[in-house]
């Protein structure tokens, strides 16, 4: 089952300039979103343990945005476990299936590196705060696009990939955010 949509994110109150409510500026961030849901709860019953629903979700989101994975300035993948990041990068098309481990070892995943990944540290860094965990990746993507990354700003970031996971790899939501 899939859901697709496009949205213009017009403002995050928490990020708005602190000069008063009247000064909030629309961000002009365009979000292409695609979601795929499987029929399983336990991952045991997923059709595949090795290829996740990130694949159709990411393919659809990239197609809607008319861009490719290689166009991304950063990625913010849901990271409940390290393997989740690697499977997500493989299935979203950043590297070949089975090459994710080598890929993250061969790239600099820091904000200043050649493959900025979870520039806010991700949930592997700060914990997994329930539903807020997935939203943290969206917020970080928006911050980077707004140039509000502070000391972790990705240089010239104009487009990025965000992925959210639900259940035990039971549903996946891919976002392409751009300004």
């Amino acid at each position: 089952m899939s859901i697709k949509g496009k949205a213009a994110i017009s403002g995050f109150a928490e990020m708005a300039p602190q000069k008063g409510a009247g000064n909030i500026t629309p961000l002009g961030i365009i979000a292409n979103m695609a979601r795929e849901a499987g029929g399983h709860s336990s991952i045991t019953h997923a059709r595949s343990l090795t290829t996740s629903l990130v694949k159709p979700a990411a393919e659809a989101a990239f197609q809607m945005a008319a861009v490719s994975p290689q166009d991304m300035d950063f990625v913010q993948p849901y990271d409940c476990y390290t393997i989740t990041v690697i499977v997500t990068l493989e299935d979203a098309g950043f590297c070949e299936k089975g090459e994710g481990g080598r890929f993250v070892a061969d790239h600099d995943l820091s904000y200043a590196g050649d493959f900025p990944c979870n520039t806010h540290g991700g949930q592997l860094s700060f914990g997994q705060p329930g539903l807020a965990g997935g939203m943290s990746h969206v917020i970080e993507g928006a911050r980077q696009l707004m140039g509000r990354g502070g000391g972790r700003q990705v240089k010239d970031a104009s487009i990025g990939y965000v992925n959210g996971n639900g259940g035990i790899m039971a549903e996946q939501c891919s976002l392409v955010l751009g300004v």
Partner: protein
Amino acid sequence: MGEYTKPLPHPNEVSQPFWDAAKRHELQIQRCHACGTSIFYPREACPECLAADLIWIPVAGRGRLYSYTIAQAPTHPAFADDVPYVIAIVELEEGPHITTNLVGCQPDQVTIGMPVVASFEDVSAEMTLVKFRPE
């Protein structure tokens, strides 16, 4: 039959036909009457098309080992004497995956993709568990 001290399943109205069939040493899964999808674990609605028109069908209980892990430490005191034992995911010929134990096979002889067949273990007067063994 000695007293069985391990945790037992709790059948409900949805899963009862599965356990009733197991008691007869027969594996049954559901099939969606609307779209034909074969379904395991027991559900109230088809995970593919959401139709509630599900029927129970007997299957041969054949499949292949899709994935496994070997428990070297028991996850419950009652399993202490069983280690090492194999926790397995079997892909049935009909498609669905089933979580089970692989029995009748030394852990170091287990290989992904090996053909397996259902094996029924009567653990109490009321309950029979479905495990799998090499075919």
